[in-house]
């Protein structure tokens, strides 16, 4: 059994990655480049959070922006109306999103596959319409965050560097939660539900309960990401946090990098955000569509050739390198079946 050396190698790799991430902004000091790194971390955090329900448990949500938006709006409203510090506001937003996830998941998890995905799109769209037409939330006009204070208490900073470390911390937290789930019985149950839900039931697994756990944890973490977005941008409106494009992006990041693998979405975020930002600078305005073409082509290729994403592709490639163990000769059940 190789779990011993394998997991300690992975742990060292992750630690090295974290160390690199921690010192990177000290070397890369240009603000727009630091912003680029922050965007990658934000994307990675959203993707890892999505992966918990979409990758591990296999429940594909194409409406995750609804949680992002709930987080952004909750912490911002609490800040503007009660002066509550966004550190607590983000937790409140996370909690609210989790409760919303429970309410939405309870009826929707009866639906299978495509139907569930459709329902998530519908829920997010409905929410966006409701918020856009809500006077209390300033509707389409949006909310501005007060600029009168800054510093760690207010989670508003004058330079990019502190934002970087906050989002890095949130990403690490999200990865740790994902990792803890993965190695606990919950993680095993998620994978069972994804592979063979009926067989899982026959082993005593309550599908609804575990899907709800997956969705609410994912919602909580996604909402925290939304709160960070609000603090960084100092302005939110329905189009920037509830839009379907956000839901698509979140799912894309996870799919590209590798659904169901811990660090997959991190890789996906690196790829996606890089393409997004560089096609923007290379081809001009966002109206060019080139970034869409590139990552759409990637997602189609990944869907057709490797459902495990780029990380899966890399894993497959590694096995073909010299020095790798030869694949076992097998008459697998798949070939034996007529």
């Amino acid at each position, binding site marked *: 059994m190789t779990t011993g050396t394998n997991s300690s190698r992975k742990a060292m790799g992750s630690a090295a990655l974290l160390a690199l991430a921690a010192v990177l902004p000290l070397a890369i000091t240009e603000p727009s480049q630091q912003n680029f790194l922050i965007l990658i971390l934000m994307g990675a955090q959203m993707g890892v959070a999505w992966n918990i329900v979409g990758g591990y448990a296999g429940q*594909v949500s194409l409406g995750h922006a609804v949680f992002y938006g709930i987080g952004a709006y909750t912490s911002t409203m609490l800040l503007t109306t009660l002066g509550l510090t966004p550190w607590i506001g983000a937790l409140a937003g996370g909690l609210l999103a989790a409760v919303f996830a429970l309410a939405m998941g309870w009826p929707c998890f009866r639906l299978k596959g495509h139907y569930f995905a*459709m329902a998530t799109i*519908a829920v997010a769209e*409905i929410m966006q*319409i409701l918020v856009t037409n809500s006077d209390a939330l300033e509707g389409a006009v949006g909310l501005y965050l007060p600029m009168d204070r800054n510093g760690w208490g207010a989670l508003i900073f004058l330079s990019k560097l502190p934002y970087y470390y906050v989002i890095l911390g949130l990403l690490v937290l999200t990865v740790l939660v994902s990792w803890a789930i993965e190695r606990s019985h919950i993680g095993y149950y998620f994978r069972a539900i994804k592979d063979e839900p009926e067989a899982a039931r026959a082993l005593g697994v309550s599908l609804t309960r575990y899907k709800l756990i997956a969705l609410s944890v994912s919602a909580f973490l996604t909402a925290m990401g939304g709160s960070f977005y609000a603090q960084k941008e100092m302005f939110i409106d329905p189009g920037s946090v509830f839009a379907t494009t956000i839901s698509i992006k979140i799912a894309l990041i996870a799919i590209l990098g590798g659904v169901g693998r811990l660090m997959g979405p991190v890789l996906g975020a690196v790829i996606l955000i890089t393409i997004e930002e560089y096609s923007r600078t290379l081809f001009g305005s966002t109206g060019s569509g080139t970034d869409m073409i590139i990552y759409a082509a990637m997602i189609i290729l990944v869907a*057709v050739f490797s459902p495990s994403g780029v990380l899966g592709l890399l894993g497959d490639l590694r096995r073909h390198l010299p020095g790798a163990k030869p694949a076992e000769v097998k008459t697998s059940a798949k070939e034996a079946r007529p």
Partner: protein
Amino acid sequence: MTADILIQVLVSGLLIGLIYALVAVGLTLIFGVMDIVNFAHGEFLMLGMYASFWAFALFAIDPIVALPLTALLLFAVGVIVYQTVIRRILKAPMLSQIFATFGLMILLRGLAQFFWKPDHRLIPHSLVSGNIALGPVQFGLPQFVAALGAVGVTGALWMFLHRTRLGTALEATAIDREAATLMGIDGQKMFALAWGIGAACAGLAGGLIATFFPIFPEVGSNFILIAFVVVVLGGFGSVTGAFLAGIIVGLIEVLGGFLVGPEYKTAIVLSLLLIVLLVRPRGLLGKA
């Protein structure tokens, strides 16, 4: 609300509902034959609209006259999409299938945006411009013709599926793929045919509404969600169901928008989707 206003609302709902029906029949056909939800269906409609636009802008062909051309073009697009992408994910896990058509949606939008820019375009005039007044009711001629066209195409599709050999073979594949194969029906050809016809229907819908609706790369998103609602309400795989459901959804959208507020009409239609999914997922006429 007076009777006149009510009739006006119902007529508007009926007209737009028939368009929705036409968009949805292609989507439901594809699902019925091969259990794949085409998230890129709205983009076939978008391409149909652009085909009409360019026929008009470059060759001064009226959109109505261009309809057969649009249909053929989109049929080809559907078949090509099937051969290049869909064929490879037939046996893939559902996740991959969702992502593949999803990626297709983004790809087509991106291509449209790249080649034709995001500007909204309009076809300023066509054979069918103008309004009709019928007693207390007023409606645009383009909308009326589009609705008529929708009825015609849906009817033709139904005839094709139930009265021709090829169409019956397609239906047979939808009902039981293995049995159909045993009877000598080529599954691959049927799938390609389904995609071709499905895309052509969406393209025709696009061509029909290009006479009055703005044309831009993201226009598909306006229709894809509603098409889903229609397909779910009508029942996955049922062309008749999609026809009836399209009308119902159109009526609910306009009525709901009138009673609650036009900014909420999409929310109302989407709520209908959720209700149907939760209460009766197989819809009106779908297979159980």
